[in-house]
């Protein structure tokens, strides 16, 4: 009898245990696994959004202190953008009135204390809006592209937006709260050291601002290509990422030019790294189209995060284009980056920005990158005095006049008239680093004044005023 009881007891314990364990396996564990998967995905999405918000930022910002006195920031843009976003959020999340406005109104507002944000080329308003976590609002519906935003410091519930084809809009909130956010920010900024800019050609109706003295030393920077082409292992390391870290089914070809080609299958996918360290990736994609620019940008970011070993610092979105291959529609994204606070530019036949990526649907069909990194060298940071842009223009006036005559195709123009026209047509002046692409390693980047006059752009060495490159505006 006793023995039977013991058996029953053991059996019931076993039954209870089996129920408990089954429950652990079937109810608790899978949920936890699913949860961890979810949070991984969430983290990935959060990371992509964070990167997107970093990439969508103004290229340069202009602070107006009032009284015809301004400053241009290119290295401090983050701070200005962050502050401006606090004000802009209301406009993107609210229901403002959007109406067309005139250039005069815009210019008047710019003369008073204000912040002007200048974005890259053809940036759709929906992308800028996405940084405020809203994709559908009045601004996105009424304005297609945003090139620049002007925020008056005296908050009257009005901002100005420069859109596609130089259209200007006034965006007005019906209800707004008075605040001194920007006013205090601008006043604080004016007390810190900065370069003063003035509208030196205001009398010929040109608002272009230029410095009358430039005291901030701008050093030359020594850079090297991110991919070291002399090291085969380094080349393979960079190519691997594009083939799921596995080169077993990938053909490798060395060209006589020094370029290395990695090809998968019958050429469905290929990577070419040239003798300068420029990487080009191409993939054949089935017919896919995309109409959502935000999703396409996310695809591009996701691709870059996965394939690039390290994301270059200070990267920003510079240009967007609609592209078409056969029947498929997609987007081209051009990215640029800053070194030592200044944008880096170069001239290459088949590339206009340091990173170019083409997206169709949720696939990347082409990716090109040519990234330079600053080398840590001591004792080579040469600093010389910076020449003023107006002095450079004056020194090169003969060349500017010659090119002007070519452009207008008129020969018997009066000298005075020609100079006046040149002065009227100066549309942009910016300090940048120019990469002359002579060396893979130990390339010296010189600070350069990039001056745009009419349809032409000029790159002048800011130390000695020599012309390094000129050409038609891209």
């Amino acid at each position: 009898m006793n023995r039977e009881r013991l058996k029953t007891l053991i059996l019931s314990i076993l039954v209870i245990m089996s129920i408990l364990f089954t429950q652990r396996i079937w109810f608790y564990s899978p949920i936890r696994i699913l949860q961890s998967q979810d949070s991984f995905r969430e983290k990935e999405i959060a990371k992509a959004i964070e990167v997107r918000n970093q990439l969508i930022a103004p290229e340069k910002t202009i602070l107006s202190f009032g009284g015809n006195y301004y400053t241009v920031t290119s290295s401090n843009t983050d701070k200005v953008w962050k502050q401006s976003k606090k004000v802009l959020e209301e406009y993107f999340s609210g229901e403002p009135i959007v109406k067309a406005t005139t250039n005069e109104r815009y210019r008047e507002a710019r003369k008073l204390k204000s912040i002007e944000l200048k974005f890259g080329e053809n940036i759709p308003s929906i992308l800028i809006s996405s940084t405020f976590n809203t994709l559908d609002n009045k601004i996105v519906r009424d304005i297609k592209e945003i090139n620049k935003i002007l925020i008056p410091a005296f908050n009257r519930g009005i901002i100005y937006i420069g859109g596609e084809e130089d259209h200007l809009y006034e965006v007005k909130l019906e209800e707004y709260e008075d605040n001194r956010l920007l006013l205090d920010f601008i006043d604080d900024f004016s007390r810190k050291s900065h370069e003063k800019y003035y509208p030196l050609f205001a009398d010929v109706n040109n608002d272009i601002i230029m410095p009358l003295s430039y005291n901030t030393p701008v050093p030359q920077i020594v850079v090297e290509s991110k991919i070291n082409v002399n090291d085969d292992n380094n080349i393979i390391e960079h190519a691997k990422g594009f083939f799921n870290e596995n080169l077993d089914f990938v053909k490798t070809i060395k060209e006589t030019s020094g370029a290395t080609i990695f090809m998968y299958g019958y050429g469905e996918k290929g990577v070419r790294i040239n003798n300068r360290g420029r990487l080009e990736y191409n993939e054949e994609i089935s017919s896919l189209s995309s109409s959502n620019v935000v999703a396409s940008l996310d695809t591009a970011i996701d691709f870059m995060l996965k394939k690039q070993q390290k994301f270059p610092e200070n990267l920003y979105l510079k240009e967007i284009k609609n592209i078409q291959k056969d029947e498929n529609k997609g987007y081209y994204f051009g990215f640029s980056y800053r070194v030592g606070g200044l944008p880096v530019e170069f001239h290459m036949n088949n590339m206009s920005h340091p990173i170019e990526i083409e997206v169709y649907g949720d696939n990347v069909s082409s990716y090109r990158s040519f990234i330079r990194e600053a080398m840590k060298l001591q004792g080579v940071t040469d600093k010389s005095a910076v020449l003023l842009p107006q002095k450079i223009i004056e020194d090169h006036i003969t060349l500017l006049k010659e090119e002007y005559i070519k452009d207008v195709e008129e020969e018997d123009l009066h000298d005075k008239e020609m100079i006046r026209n040149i002065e009227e047509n100066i549309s942009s002046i910016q300090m940048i680093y120019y990469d002359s692409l002579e060396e893979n390693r130990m390339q010296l980047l010189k600070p350069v004044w990039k001056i745009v006059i009419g349809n032409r752009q000029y790159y002048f060495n800011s130390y000695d005023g020599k012309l390094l490159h000129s050409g038609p505006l891209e």
Partner: protein
Amino acid sequence: MMKKIIASAIVLLALSGSSVLAHGDTTQQTTAKETTVEQESLRVINPRRDMVSGDNNMVLTFSAPEGTTVTIDVYYNTSVSNDKQNYVQAYDTIEVEIGALKRGWTEVELKKGLNKIDFTAIYKNGSEEVITRIIEVKDMEEVKQQVEKSIINTSSTEALKNIANTGGK
């Protein structure tokens, strides 16, 4: 009778309106003439005339023929009396060589009160020409108060006149 009065009023209005327009036209013509004539000699673009400013710093813009040397002397008024000024040179003479753009710029520091700026052009042929501007620097608050006071106390046209007068002093 009423009709006549209204009609004559309209005619008078139309006449006065057209005279304003005509007046505007003549000034435009003269400025156009000025630019063509003055292009060959020293011309001060900013400040265009004697003026009141709320800022201690001022950018001077001027034009002159290529090869001209323009010197700029800034004087501060040290006299405390309102009727008589005693101008003392503030700092070393600023020298600007005029190049191919036929333009010159310089930033000067002014002091509260009256300031005198002398622009001297020394042309290639050795001849000289001097243009003088008197700039009164006032605190922003002072300028604001003045404007506000005149707005409260007087009619808008007089307020405008007041501002214009101080500008032309």
